[in-house]
């Protein structure tokens, strides 16, 4: 493997995995929260929240990256604030996580929201008559029932994070070992004549990794489904 991939590409593979993993993990709690809010609550501004969540999907990634740079960069309002607490995104792999996470967010929210909407509210009612508060109902009834959807959302997010390029490179640019993810490396190879072979190797790695994650998620989801599902 290390023969086949140069050390720099190897680093990119590792970094991409790390970024995708953390992007998925970090977006999961807010994804659950927002999905629940959108699925089960009505409030003024709901459509606006929904729109904001979908923005990264609609905007060209470059624009998203630029917006991230403006807000989470060291000179940005949020970035500057967080910097005081030692949290820095600019030019760090954490920034790549942020970018990938934000790009993946709408996919995750949609998947989870659909699952929540499919949960029979009568089961949640039953739980509440048994004494479970809203939070407990969510944790003990809703969450286990939407697990297949959460897994689906997570894998979508992971896949998206593995493939994300435009926003990431715009926000944290491409620093080998720190922010150079697989797609950045692939992109670079494709920019120069004759780089196709090297790009192809990296594409193959991407595909293998993502397929692995996909199969894992299917197995997990199926196990969960079997517990809950039909005869």
């Amino acid at each position, binding site marked *: 493997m290390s023969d086949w991939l140069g050390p720099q590409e190897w680093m990119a593979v590792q970094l991409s995995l790390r970024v995708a993993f953390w992007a998925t993990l970090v977006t999961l709690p807010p994804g659950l929260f927002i999905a629940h809010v959108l699925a089960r609550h009505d409030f003024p501004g709901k459509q606006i929240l929904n729109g904001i969540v979908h923005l990264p999907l609609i905007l060209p990634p470059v624009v998203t990256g630029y917006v991230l740079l403006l807000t989470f960069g060291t000179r940005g309002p949020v970035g500057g604030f967080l910097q005081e607490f030692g949290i820095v995104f600019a030019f760090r792999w954490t920034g790549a996580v942020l970018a990938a996470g934000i790009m993946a967010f709408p996919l995750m929210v949609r998947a989870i929201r659909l699952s929540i909407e499919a949960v029979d509210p009568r089961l949640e009612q039953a739980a509440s008559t048994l004494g479970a508060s809203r939070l407990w109902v969510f944790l003990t009834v809703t969450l286990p029932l939407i697990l297949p959807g959460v897994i689906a959302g997570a894998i979508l997010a992971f896949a998206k994070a593995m493939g994300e*390029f435009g926003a990431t490179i715009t926000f944290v640019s491409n620093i080998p070992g720190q922010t150079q993810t697989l797609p950045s490396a692939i992109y670079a190879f494709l920019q120069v004549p004759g780089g196709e072979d090297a790009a192809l190797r990296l594409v193959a790695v991407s595909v293998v990794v993502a397929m692995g994650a996909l199969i894992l998620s299917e197995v997990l989801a199926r196990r969960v489904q079997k517990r809950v599902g039909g005869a």
Partner: protein
Amino acid sequence: DRITVFAAASLKNALEQVASEFERASGHQLTLSLAGSSSLARQIELGAPADVFLSANVGWMDRLLHNGALQEDSRFDLAGNKLVLVAPRADAVQMDLTSLAATLGEGRLAMALVDAVPAGIYGKAAMEHLGLWKGVAPQVAQADNVRAALALVALGEAPFGIVYASDAMAEPRVSVVATFPTETHPPIVYPAAIVAGRDRAAVRAFMSYLRGDQAWTAFAAQGFTPVGVAHE
């Protein structure tokens, strides 16, 4: 007649001006498809309906000529550019390139992809030529194109960046703090050529219009520098 021009996106402003003038003068219709040179080159290789290719670098032009996708004798260098070091306007002071590594410290040097995108390749070559590359390499933040590198400097995220003079000129938030001597890097040129099999009177008319003074005014206005003899 309708002429389709596949051109590097960085030529957009100049070409749009040229296009409207040419259309008025010649009566031909001009369609501009603006994208990255690599995309355009591959598309031409695979049969895109382009008549003229304007590349931002020599590499893709060479490859297409080599493949026979372009008409050999039609190639010429349209314009050139200069490479400059920029800093955010607020803390801009003229400086010596050799002190870059020291001044940079922990800060980032924004460049386009140093192995893939022309501005990055030129920049890296220049730094290597000046013996500075080793010192700054770990600090380089590579953007996917030169405009993104410029944005990093303009927003103050990177204290320095290496970009084209043409871009630096139009960005009010940055100042040029040093210019790379021409001999430190391969010549920066934007070559043009007719796509193989697309040689028609109208296309030729456009190619010669591009070489003319009127077109040159437009390129010069965008900060491009002259190449070859035509405009010296």
